[in-house]
C-alpha cells in the first residue's frame, strides 16, 4: 500500500510516494539517494543510520517513512555550513575518530544529539541522581561512552571518537585537561 509523504532533508523539501513498509532509512537512501545515513544492522542496534529527526537523534531504520510525514530530517551530510564541516566532524578528523568510515555519519549525528541533550540538562545512566540540573552535566569521557553506546564502530576507533566528542563539547578556547588519546588500537 502506497502513501504520499513529504520530508525536508538537510533543508531541502521532497515529495515522494512510498510503500507503507518503507523505513525512513530506505526512503532516504533508495528513494531520495541521500546516502549519508548507512544501513548497518537494520535493527536499531548499531547506530550507523542515526539522523536527527525534528532535532532529535533517532535510528532511521526503525522509523517508518510514512510516520515521519512532514518531518525535518538532518543527516551528517547536512550539518556543515558554508562548505565547512560541523565541529563534531572536524574533531573526528583531528582525533582519528574513524578508520573505514562506515559508522561515521551515524556517530556524527549521534554526537551532535549528545551535545544538544547535555546542553538541555538531560542526565544519562552515569549522571549521579540530582546532578547536572543547571547548564547540563559535564561531558566527561564516562558520560560520552555511556551516551554514545548506541553507535558501534567495528574498526574500534572508540578512543578517537571519545576524544573528538570531548573536544567538540569543550567551550571554544578552553584547553584540554590532558593530552587527547590517539588512535583506536590500530
Amino acid at each position, binding site marked *: *500500500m502506497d502513501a504520499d509523504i513529504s520530508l525536508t532533508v538537510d533543508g531541502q523539501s521532497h515529495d515522494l510516494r512510498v510503500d507503507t513498509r518503507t523505513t525512513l532509512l530506505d526512503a532516504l537512501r533508495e528513494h531520495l539517494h541521500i546516502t549519508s545515513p548507512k544501513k548497518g544492522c537494520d535493527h536499531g542496534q548499531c547506530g550507523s543510520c542515526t539522523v536527527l529527526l525534528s532535532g532529535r537523534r533517532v535510528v532511521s531504520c526503525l522509523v517508518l517513512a510514512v510516520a515521519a510525514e512532514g518531518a525535518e530530517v538532518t543527516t551528517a551530510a547536512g550539518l556543515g555550513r558554508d562548505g565547512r564541516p560541523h565541529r563534531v566532524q572536524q574533531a573526528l578528523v583531528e582525533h582519528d575518530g574513524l578508520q573505514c568510515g562506515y559508522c561515521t555519519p551515524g556517530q556524527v549525528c549521534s554526537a551532535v544529539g549528545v551535545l544538544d541533550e547535555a546542553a538541555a540538562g538531560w542526565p544519562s545512566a552515569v549522571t549521579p541522581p540530582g546532578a547536572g540540573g543547571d547548564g547540563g552535566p559535564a561531558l566527561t569521557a564516562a558520560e560520552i561512552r555511556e551516551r554514545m*553506546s548506541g553507535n558501534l564502530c567495528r574498526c574500534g576507533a572508540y578512543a578517537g571518537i571519545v576524544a573528538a566528542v570531548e573536544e567538540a563539547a569543550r567551550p571554544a578556547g578552553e584547553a584540554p585537561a590532558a593530552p587527547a588519546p590517539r588512535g583506536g588500537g590500530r
Partner: protein
Amino acid sequence: MKPFDYRRASDAAGAAALVAEHPGAAFLGGGTNLVDHMKLGVAAPDMLVDITHLPMDRVEALPEGEGGVSIGANVRNSEAAAHPLVRERYPVLSQALLSGASGQLRNAATTGGNLLQRTRCVYFQDTGTPCNKREPGSGCSALEGYQRYHAVFGASPDCVATHPSDMAVALVALDARVVVTDAAGGERRIPVAELHRLPGEAPEQDTVLSRGDLITAVELPEMPMAARARYRKIRDRASFAFALVSAAVGLELAADGTVADVRIALGGVAHKPWRALLAEEALRGSAATEAGFAAAAEAELSEARPLPGNVFKLELVRAAVTETLGEVAAELRGEGEL
C-alpha cells in the same frame, strides 16, 4: 514484511475503536520494538494505527490532594527520564529509563510502548524455532536451549520468557497505574503490577489488556520513599544491554531504625516486572541491617525455580537486593551520597 494500511489516529477513543474492530491492527508508538518485530516476521499487522499525534505527550503534576505525577503515554523515554518532576520525585524511574536501550532508542520509544514491548527471548524473535508465545502450541525452545535471559520466578512449562523493560520495574516499585481508554470510550485504571501476566498456559498474552485497549498515561502516586528509591541493573556489558537482573528499591525507616515500609521490584527474572512481596514481608518491621536485607533476599529466593542455564541469577538477585537496600538505607541515615 506483510503489507499494511497506515492510519493516523486523531482521538484516543477512535484509535481504540479502530484497533478493536480490526483483528490484524496494532497501535504504532515509537516503533522501536514493533517495526523491528515486523522486519523479523514476529509481528505481522495488516493495519497500523499511529497514535503518536494524540495529545498524550505531557508530564504534569496531578491535582493537589491526589499528589503524584502523570506521564502521557506518548512521552518519549528520554523526555520522561529528564523531566524535573520525575528526577525530583521519582529518581528511580529516571535511573531505570536511562539504563535501558540507547540514546537514539530512548528518543523514539514511548512510555506506553515501553510497557507493551515484547520479550527479547531469542526463540520468540526467531520464526524458525518453536515458541508458544509467538505461535501457541508450537512448544518452548528455551526449555532445552539458551536460558541466560530467562525467568527464575513464575514461569510455566509453556514459557520461560522475561519482560525486558527497566521502566516497568521502577513503576511497579512506585505503585504506579496505567490509565486505559477502551473501544467504547470508557476509561479505567490498572496498577502496573497487575498489567502484565504470568505465562501460565497462555504465554501469547503479555498483559490483561483487551484488543483495542489504549494506554493513555501512567500515573505515579505520591509516595514518601520515592525520592530516595534507587535502581540497580546488572547486565553483560556496561551499556545498551538488557538486564540479567535488576532491582528497584524503596525504603522508609522508622525512628528506631527498623523498616517502616519497603518496595522491591525485580527485572529480568520473570514474565512480568516481579514485585518481591516475600522479601518485603520479611523486611517490614525488622532491623534495617545487611543481615536483614540478605534474609529478605533469601525469603524471595525460596520461590525461585531457576533453569539449568540461569542458576547464576539467584546470586545476582541476592546481590542486587542486598546491596541496593544497603545503599538506600545508608543514604537515608545520612551516611553519604550514592
